[in-house]
């Protein structure tokens, strides 16, 4: 370490923070353009939120391992109660309900559930004797832990978040060493169940999203409009883009949601393929750092926790980018660190904070310790 830089600063994981700050800054520029060349209403609040949640992430690093382990189940329980509460209020108020108005802030418990499910599963598997990993006792409790919040979120209905919870949970189970054939069996089962779920489980508007994803030109002015316009924005950007603040698709409102779900298309139109590859590369750097934190960690809990957080972020990025490029149906999943929106920023910064926390645990204790 360079002695000129004070230790508390040098200690920070700059390999991740620098790309992250660059990404958020770039995101702010895109939002500046999406607002028609103005700091308001998106860019300023985007940066402000990032700073607030960065402080929150730093505070998280102060938590000790035992405390986090201890808090896992109660936290999960509280979130479940909140999810039920949201459902109840929604039932009373009529219609879809995702928010819990706590007066000061609007809380979206389903968002918090995404990191929480990782935490609780990591806690569960770290407590499970290794010899039981191959038995039903490794599968059933974890399955219940995942299924309850997924079911509640699906009732809202919020397919995107439910899938994110499922994906995070499944990744942790996979990394926990559960038998591979279970996953293969589940995969085959999902393939069989998908059509059934499509026809009986999905709402009309969700079904439409899937069918238009398969054939967006079938309804270019209706539900396929989003995908078509997004592809036009990305494709028309070319190699170098149309230039900062020059994107016609976003500025003339052809692109739906140019500041949230389709922020990548807004960016790609103005910055071209180079901007797009840079963004993908930065995500790659952040994820790689996350996985290395997981690999370097001392115990099963921290390792599963860290890699689960990476998986959650990965799910956001991959689904969003696939959606805007026309490779996935339109599900309302924003792009981490670039899309304007508080709850997505919060979830992803919790993931980052958790990774920074695990990173701190790693640097504090030698690796030899076993859990």
């Amino acid at each position, binding site marked *: 370490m360079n002695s000129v830089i004070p230790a508390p600063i040098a200690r920070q994981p700059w390999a991740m923070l620098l790309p992250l700050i660059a990404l958020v800054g770039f995101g702010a520029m895109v939002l500046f353009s999406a607002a028609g060349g103005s700091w308001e209403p998106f860019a300023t609040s985007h940066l402000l939120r990032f700073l607030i949640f960065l402080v929150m992430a730093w505070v998280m690093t102060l938590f000790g391992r035992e405390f986090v382990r201890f808090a896992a189940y109660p936290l999960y329980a509280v979130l479940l109660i909140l999810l039920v509460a949201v459902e109840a209020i929604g039932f009373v108020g009529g219609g879809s309900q995702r928010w819990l108005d706590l007066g000061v802030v609007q809380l979206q418990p389903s968002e918090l559930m995404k990191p929480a499910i990782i935490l609780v599963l990591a806690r569960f598997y770290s407590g499970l004797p*290794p*010899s039981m990993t191959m038995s039903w006792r490794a599968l059933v409790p974890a399955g219940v832990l995942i299924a309850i919040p997924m079911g509640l979120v699906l009732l809202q209905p919020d397919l995107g978040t439910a899938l994110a919870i499922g994906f995070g949970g499944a990744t942790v189970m996979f990394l926990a060493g559960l038998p591979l054939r279970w996953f293969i069996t589940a995969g085959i089962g999902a393939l069989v169940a998908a059509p059934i779920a499509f026809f009986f489980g999905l709402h009309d508007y969700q079904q439409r999203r899937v069918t238009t994803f398969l054939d967006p030109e079938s309804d270019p002015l209706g539900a396929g409009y989003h995908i078509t316009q997004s592809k*036009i924005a990305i494709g028309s950007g070319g190699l170098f883009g149309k230039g900062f603040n020059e994107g016609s698709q976003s500025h003339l409102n052809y692109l739906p949601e140019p500041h949230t779900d389709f922020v990548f298309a807004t960016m790609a*139109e103005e910055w071209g393929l180079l901007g797009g*590859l840079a963004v993908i590369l930065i995500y790659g750097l952040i994820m790689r750092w996350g996985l290395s934190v997981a690999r370097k960690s001392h115990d099963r809990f921290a390792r599963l926790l860290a890699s689960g957080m990476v998986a959650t972020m990965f799910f956001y990025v991959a689904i969003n980018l696939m959606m805007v*490029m026309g490779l996935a149906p339109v599900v309302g999943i924003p792009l981490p660190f670039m899309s304007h929106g508080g709850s997505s920023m919060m979830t992803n910064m919790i993931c980052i904070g958790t990774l920074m926390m695990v990173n701190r645990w790693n640097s504090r204790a030698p690796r030899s310790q076993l859990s």
Partner: protein
Amino acid sequence: MFRRKPLFRKAPHVQITSATLDNTYDRRSFVVAGFGASIGLLLAGRMSYLAIAENEKYETEAESNRVNLSLIPPRRGWIIDRNGAPLASNRADFRVDVIPERMNHPEQQMAVLQEVLNLDQAAMADLREQIEQTRGFRPVEVASGLSYEQFAALSVRLPNLPGVVPQRGYSRYYPTGPAVGHLIGYVGPASAEEYEKDRNPLLITPGYKIGKDGLEKQFEQRLRGVPGARRVEVTATGRIVRDLETRDDIQGKPIKLTIDGPLQDYAARRIGLESGSVVVMDCRTGDVLCMASMPSFDPNSFSDGIGRVEYAMLRDDERVPLRNKVLKGLYPPGSTVKPMVSMALLREGVDPEETVYCGGGLRVGNRVFHCWQRRGHGQVNMAKGIYQSCDVYFYHLAQRIGMDPIAAMAHRCGMGQEFDLPVLSQFYGTVPDPAWKLEKYGREWQAYDTVNATIGQGYMLANPLQLAVMASRLASGRHVEPHLLFGESKGHFPPADFAPEHVALVRKAMSDVINGPGTAGRARLPLDDVLMAGKTGTAQVVSLSRSDGRSGPWKYRDHGLFIFFAPYDNPRYAGAVVIEHGGGSSAAYPIARDVMTFLFDPRKGVESLHALEKQWGGNAQERLAARYAAYAAQTGETVPPAPRRDEEIFARVDAEARAAAMIPVAEATDAAVNRSDLAE
């Protein structure tokens, strides 16, 4: 359940430790990282494909999103009369269209339109019907001729009214309205069929109208012009951000007609309450000066989008205001053929001084054919046969020469002929002869057929234009062909193969019809120096047993006909007047007299017209409006037609303008000014 058991039973066989789990984690996290990396590569590849391989396609699509190309409908070419005054012109106006397909809440939006534009219930009913009938992509005109205030009020509300398109455009204007309706036709939005035929995007441009009838349709391509274009940058909601470039339209070429606008207006109005037509030709050049057919429709209200009620009124009228009677009205020509038959007799060597005794009738076969004058005319020579219109004279001599020479002469005079005119269709009637009858009915020609034909009854049918051409040919002795386009005729027609002395004799006899001891003394022109010659005709419509031809139900009354030319000694103008069910020729020749008076002395003509219009209750346009109001009230519609425009900027083609122009300058300072240039 059965499948799951073996899944779990295997577990205890392998000893799992934390070390093996670490190992598994390392391997699996490698798989997960690999999976993530491959998704990353997939995304990078997909993006490269979109941005490079398909770049061109998407760039075009982005551009077509951004740029909206709208056509500026070209201003339609004017239709002008022989003196350059507009019979059909354009005037700038504010208009509102809707595109049914793009309206999201049609009923709500229609209510807003009704309120802002102050539309009444009938107009709304019309609009709904139109919207139902047209294809969704085609704009439907809601209202035109809006005031600037209405236009502005609507423009403010546009963001909430998708599919509503306010336009600044031009609308077609016919200064003399009904007088030129049949001749010029009218314009209207292209129908779906017309668009199928001519896939010109201009046709579905809001507010663009094509010729639907008459000359407007005939000369559509020439009048159309070249549309301009406006490229604008628009947002997804259609709001215009800025103009990119604009190319002006090129106005369609004008069409100059041989028609004399004021004369056309005068003749149309002079027909008055009757149903009929007036044709006046220049018998030296063949120029058709006037082709009036009344009652007519007002092409202005068709161009503004005719109302449902107004259309029903026109359609249900037994006087068929939707038919051009000059070209498509066929009538037995009656006694107006007698000068022509006389020419045939002379040609066959009949001595004009040979007399025939008329005792009021002539037995042909086992039937007695009466002369119109039941008392008889006594001894009748050819001249008296014409000016007294003695039927017996012609019954007798026609039988001597037979039908064929008469039919040949009729053809020579233009009957049965289809003229080379730029019109959509003309009915050319019948000149019967033995061969024709045999072919058509399979029966032999009889003597009584000849007798009927010589007085223009029986099978013989002609349209008013043919009668006017006949008058021109008899007057000039030349093979005059009618023309409608100015400058087309050089005026050198070959002689019609008439002997000059025959022509002179017939002309004199026709002059005596009016100026001598003839049947139409009241047709004498109120002028000192011009004598008009003519021939009356009364065509029977039903047998005498059903009606005496003068009274009773309108549609059983006789047609009144009159052919004429003037001045008699040096013919310049010739024409024909046909009044349907006028009850005899006395309904026709006063009109011919007044029309010719107007031609030679506009002030005198207009004075007599004004006196008549006072009795009739206004001029043709005013009466049409009054009739509409009455009709509308009868069908339970409470509302008047669309308000007429107030400004009368084209004051040059109506009859009064000509009369005013003849007054010394001190008396009329503001007449005959073409202010159309100011309005454009």
